[in-house]
């Protein structure tokens, strides 16, 4: 009996279960209308839609768990990818990997700057990153001279990362994204430093009293988020084959935050799992792919997109309420 209640309450507690159910339902419903949705080819398309969001979502998730938010990732992504693009164009002899590292480092540096401003002046990250969202975009225009890096300069091997596959036809960038998710999982769940991020978000007042070095930890979290956004910039270049300073990554932060929140990461900090985030990203990716397949007019996409966010929030809320009630009932029954 108590085992069953325990199992039930864990299940109710698991936000992930809810998203998984939504994913299955969506697949079935869309599949019923458009059987083509349930093919391997679609799976590949969905898989390709995921890495861009997933990698940045890992960073954003850490930031949210630490009770912050990073709205500047779209601009960081653009900055990193334009830096890499410029290096590809102007320094064709430099090995690609150097440019990739440079892009990640640039992302990390901008994230670091976010972290420093947030901690040094004790400012709410939402406003700081709203500011750097604009500021970094300005930098993108500045370093690029407002000029696009054309496809001819993007190295073949980089583009092939989203086309060729080492195994089972799964493209490199998809594998990369899942490796990063796994690393993040390991870091957050099995490394002391990772646990401290949860602690920090769970109770920012208690954290310093427990010897957690809040300032460096916060800066680290923003730096990681920036670096992952930077890596996303590289993937962006790989997937789309050119880098434009004006459109790359615009509005990207909303997509990522939506995915992370759908994945059950609390914007109040301290709560959230890598699994949930991955599922949230998959759900969003599926919606993106399903709509054109269903022949839904492009006009409806935003409506559905917005509705999915609102519904996910409502479901999250009801799951939480239900688990709280179950907990209370269990308590009074005991």
């Amino acid at each position, binding site marked *: 009996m108590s085992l069953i209640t325990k199992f039930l309450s864990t299940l109710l507690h698991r936000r992930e279960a809810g998203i998984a159910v939504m994913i299955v339902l969506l697949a079935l419903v869309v599949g019923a209308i458009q059987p083509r949705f349930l093919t391997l080819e679609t799976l590949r398309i969905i898989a390709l839609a995921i890495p861009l969001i997933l990698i940045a979502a890992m960073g954003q998730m850490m930031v949210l768990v630490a009770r912050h938010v990073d709205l500047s990732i779209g601009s960081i992504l653009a900055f990193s990818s334009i830096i890499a693009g410029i290096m590809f164009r102007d320094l064709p002899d430099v090995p690609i990997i150097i440019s990739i590292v440079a892009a990640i480092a640039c992302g990390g540096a901008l994230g670091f700057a976010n972290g420093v401003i947030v901690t040094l002046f004790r400012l709410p990250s939402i406003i700081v990153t709203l500011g750097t969202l604009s500021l970094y975009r300005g930098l993108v225009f500045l370093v690029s001279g407002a000029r696009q890096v054309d496809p001819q300069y993007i190295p073949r091997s980089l583009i092939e990362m989203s086309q060729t596959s080492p195994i089972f036809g799964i493209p490199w960038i998809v594998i990369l994204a899942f490796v990063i998710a796994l690393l993040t999982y390991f870091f957050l*769940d*099995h*490394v*002391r*430093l990772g*646990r*401290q991020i*949860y*602690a920090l*978000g*769970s*109770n920012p*007042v*208690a*954290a*310093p*009293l*427990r*010897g*957690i*070095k809040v300032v460096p930890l916060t800066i680290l979290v923003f730096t990681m988020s920036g670096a992952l956004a930077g890596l996303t910039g590289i993937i962006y270049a790989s997937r789309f084959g050119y880098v434009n300073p004006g459109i790359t990554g615009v509005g990207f932060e909303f997509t990522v935050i939506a995915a992370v929140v759908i994945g059950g990461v609390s914007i109040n900090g*301290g*709560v959230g799992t890598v699994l949930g985030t991955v599922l949230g990203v998959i759900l969003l990716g599926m919606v993106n792919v399903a709509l054109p397949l269903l022949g839904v007019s492009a006009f409806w996409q935003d409506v559905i997109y917005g509705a999915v966010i609102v519904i996910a929030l409502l479901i999250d809320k009801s799951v939480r309420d239900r688990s709280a*009630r179950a*907990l*209370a*009932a269990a*308590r*009074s029954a*005991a």
Partner: protein
Amino acid sequence: MADAPLIAARGISKQFAGVEVLSDVDLDLMAGEIHALLGENGAGKSTFAKILAGVHRPTRGTLALNGQPVEVNNPTTAQRLGITLIHQEPISFPDMSVAENLVLGRTDSALLGRVPWAEMEQGAKDLMTQLGVRIDVTKPMRGLSIADQQMVEIARALASDSRLIIMDEPTAPLTPKEVDTLFKIARRLRDEGRTIIFISHRLEEVQALCDRATIFRDGALVDTVDVVDVTDEDIIKLMIGRPLRELIHKTGSEIGEVALEVSGLSQPGMFKNISFSVRKGEIVGLAGLVGAGRTDVARAIFGVAPAQSGTINVNGAPVTIAEPSDAIDLGLAFVPEDRAVAGIFKTLSVEHNITATVPGKIAPRGFISRGIEKALTAQSVKQLRIRLASVRQPIGELSGGNQQKAILARWLHTDPQILILDEPTRGIDIGVKAEFYDMIGKLAADGRAILLISSELPELLALCDRILVMAEGELTADLLRADATQETIMHAAVPKTGNHAQESAA
């Protein structure tokens, strides 16, 4: 004494924004003693404790550990030196498991080291067994009662193997049985040669546990005494600089009609079938162990979190209270237990805090009249003797007792006929407490009905005409003043089934 003291504090002073809250404290703490810190609210006890634990840095003064000068710049250093502070308000990480809460922030392993989940949970389980509490260490901290959270804090201090453990009002949320357990542990630690600083407002606990006591007043150390040598009166005199009269003031006011009657109030998971009534002029106490559900009942009556079923009658007529404003319209008032969160508007002025309940009064024609507002506030400040620099200063700058007075003042302006006071004197020093008792008595004498929730039995026994007792969400006793004693109340308050009973049988 042959050995150097474990800690020697010299000339410790602390200023906050220019206000000196601790001045020139010299104190020696010996190895293997339990040392009480006593003093009124705001005397500086917690501040001193925090300085020892590296939370605050002293403005002036030095610390020596075993005769060696040390600088305790941050909590990590303190921990390394073997100093652990159990904070006044339990500080934990609500989203993380009990086991993790026990080890988080421990400095003995590398930051990039792996988290040994299994080991950690086993260790936590052992620690809980050792303490004699039944807490599932894999559950998140969030679900724990305050008392259990406090026990986890204590367990953490134990686990960290400290030389000096500072407990800042650890017993406030604990049941007598838990207090007993805590005392046993404390004595054992002392016998192992560790030092414990014990901060409490309950003098009987100090008498029962402590070896020496240091009394603070207005930020200065007044005296350090051997506990066996002094009486409570002596200590109180030292604390407030004057003697205090006996606690009993209830002046049998005239008891009238039933003002508030609840019947069959239930909220699944919180409380069940609560029925009682309070008459005009009557003070009805509500006793119970922490977590018994008293606050939940009060919140339900006042409409903060209405009950699922049951009825409420006010002055004989059934009423619906969907939100607090309904309750206020019916003449109810509620002083919540968690003053910092549910009571004050911390950054707003005292004035705005006091007039929060009477928008109609301060704005008779829709626009706020500064004159009326000033007058109302001045009246409150005078009537309740609220001590402040200016009515326009943020209420957060006031001491706890004065904040609580302002909250009461807020309600007096609504001229309530039924007052629900939830732990109104919690964390308030003896001097201000006496003022509160007096005020409560006067309110009843005016013919108001009062429901007084308190965890301090002497307080209830002194003030109440009748005492209700709750245990595990149910009403277990309704005692007349004549029948109520500490024993009868505790008998009803301790649950008949469940954890507590099993434990006491064991």
